[in-house]
């Protein structure tokens, strides 16, 4: 009976993590300009479709295959069939995590990347980048796992790897037209729909209960309640950390920064949600909220154009979350050896995912072209990439007007 209840719980968590894609679409779509909003949402949508298939075909085997190449890569369980219900559920749950890792990239590179090039990158990341690190961190035979690495629900495998890939993409693509002045000034490019961003923030927060809650060993586990409580406290504290940073540094209290703060709080607690006391979760989330609000500005000052501050939220939050999982491991606080392993895991995530993503972006750029032409940035990627616009009553699209204008 317990087994079936556990299965049902993981099924619910699958749906919750899947629903996070809607959260990403809302946050990223709302933070982009109206003329690019459909493009951003399409990246998340069809990215989900492609990754779902590819992860089943090869990603799952590379990450979780029972045969391992020395702890570096899985070698079995490709396109698996004939699985038990629990095995199939596990595959589905892991596919949701892979999709989440890739969706982190889509927002960072928004508003200037060719759609086809993004989908190509999403495929390669889901096939070659995400599964490799997931194998190291989560496969029982993975070399990091063998060292005692704790990555409860993916601070390393999902968030740090996703952010490292996003940073590589941002670097290769360059900033959006006019994002930075010649004098180095940063020009705001406000999103077109902040209520949509807020809704996305709530959806992601809700989805995170599945993200962390599904990673416990079972619904009967004593950890489930603490894990869910920690998740909620991390998000709350992240929002408060962002608020404290903005307030104490004399900045206006922005909605987008508050939402990113709570998301970073969630990321910060993801690595140790099942192994921390609630007080430690609160502290981790709070520091995450401060870190990402400060970090987003720091990244902009380096003239890196991350359209949704994904690098700050998932990268800084992910690395901090891995360290926090070591620092605040319940019953073994501040154990230097544990902290060293956590730091090694964070370094490994960046050291592997960043260059691998950088090379992948470069390769795609050489083969198909990566950056949308300036004419497409002018017209908006919704029309130039998809021949659709998000708000036809208010937007004036060349395509729509051509229909009216036979000349």
């Amino acid at each position, binding site marked *: 009976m317990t087994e079936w209840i556990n299965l049902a719980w993981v099924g619910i968590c699958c749906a919750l993590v899947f629903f996070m894609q809607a959260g990403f679409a809302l946050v990223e779509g709302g933070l982009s*300009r109206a003329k690019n909003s459909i493009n951003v949402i399409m990246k998340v949508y069809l990215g989900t479709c492609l990754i779902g298939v590819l992860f089943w075909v090869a990603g799952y085997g590379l990450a979780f295959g029972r045969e391992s190449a020395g702890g570096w890569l899985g070698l079995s369980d490709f396109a698996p069939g004939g699985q038990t219900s629990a095995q199939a559920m596990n595959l589905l749950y892991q596919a949701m995590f892979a999709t989440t890792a890739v969706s982190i990239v889509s927002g960072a590179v928004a508003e200037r990347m060719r759609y086809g090039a993004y989908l190509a990158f999403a495929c390669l990341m889901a096939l070659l980048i995400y599964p490799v690190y997931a194998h190291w961190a989560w496969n029982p035979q993975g070399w990091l796992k063998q060292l005692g690495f704790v990555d409860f629900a993916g601070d390393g495998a999902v968030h740090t790897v996703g952010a490292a890939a996003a940073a590589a993409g941002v670097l290769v693509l360059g900033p959006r037209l*006019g994002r930075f002045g010649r004098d180095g000034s940063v*020009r*705001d*490019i406000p999103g077109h729909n902040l209520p949509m961003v807020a809704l996305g923030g709530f959806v992601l927060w809700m989805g995170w209960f599945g993200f962390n809650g599904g990673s416990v060993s079972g619904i009967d586990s004593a950890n489930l309640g603490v894990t869910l409580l920690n998740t909620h406290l991390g998000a709350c504290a992240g929002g408060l950390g962002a608020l404290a940073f903005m307030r104490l540094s004399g900045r206006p209290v922005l909605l987008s920064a508050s939402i990113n703060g709570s998301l970073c709080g969630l990321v910060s607690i993801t690595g140790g949600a099942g192994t921390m006391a609630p007080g430690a979760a609160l502290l981790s989330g709070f520091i995450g909220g401060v870190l990402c609000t400060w970090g987003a500005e720091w990244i902009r000052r380096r003239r890196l154009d991350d359209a949704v501050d994904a690098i700050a939220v998932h990268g800084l939050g992910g690395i901090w979350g891995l360290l926090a999982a070591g620092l605040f491991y319940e019953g073994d606080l501040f154990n230097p050896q544990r902290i060293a392993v956590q730091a090694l895991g964070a370094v490994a995530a960046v050291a592997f995912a960043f260059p691998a993503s950088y090379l992948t972006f470069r390769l795609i750029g050489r083969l198909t072209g990566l950056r949308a032409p*300036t004419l497409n940035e*002018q017209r908006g990627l919704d029309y130039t990439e998809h021949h659709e616009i998000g708000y036809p009553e208010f937007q004036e699209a060349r395509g729509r*007007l051509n229909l009216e204008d036979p*000349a």
Partner: protein
Amino acid sequence: MNGMNINQASQRRRAACAALAPVLSEDALIAALQWQQQTLSSDGITAIIAFIDGVAERNGLDAATRKRLYRIYHEALQRPEAELPLDPWPAMQAAAPTPMAPVTAAASTALNGSPAVAVPSPIEAPSPPSPPTVASAPFEDPSIPAEQRVFAALMRALLEGMRQSHAGLLDELRQSSLGQLPRLRSSAQVREQVRAAWNEGEPAPWLIATGEGTLAELVNQVYVALCETLGPIDADRLLTEAVREAQRTSAARSFSPRRLV
């Protein structure tokens, strides 16, 4: 004689623009230019010092900046036209509560060193032609292809919008656009027409004899320059407004300006 005075006044406006644009806001710059127009009597050192002192006092510039501005302004007065920003006269006209005409050097009153009591001079020189509005643009000649007339209207509306909202950055826009011109996929002749239009100071006709594709590419080059100069939000706003303005022309009935954007 009048022509010479107009040139002299234009040179002063452009020199003042070169010197003051980096240290003043757009509104303060226009105010300083208008004040110069009314008061500066000669290109002599004393008059320049008095003018710069007055601007510095009004805008709270420190002594070091003031000293630097004496030199920059004096040097700018000697520079050839091509090295100076465009004449800000249209922006001054747009900003003035009532239409003004340039004042000749001979007719201006001498600066008395106290900016607060500067007296407007009597107007002697004939007004330069005021920038034509798009609606009254002389591009009704049906022998000119509609896309070229629409492009001209769009460019003039775009530059007029720029003059009204960011006059101090017009020269940066021009430089940025000219910098991209070599990449235009068209003949050297077309590029030369565009270069001439940009260098023509006062509102140029912008009638470029080429096809729709090249005209759309030109609009894109200007859009990129606008993004670099103002940022993408203002660039989008100016382009949208220019399209709306161009749509009011008669040529837009046979060729929608949106086909160029």
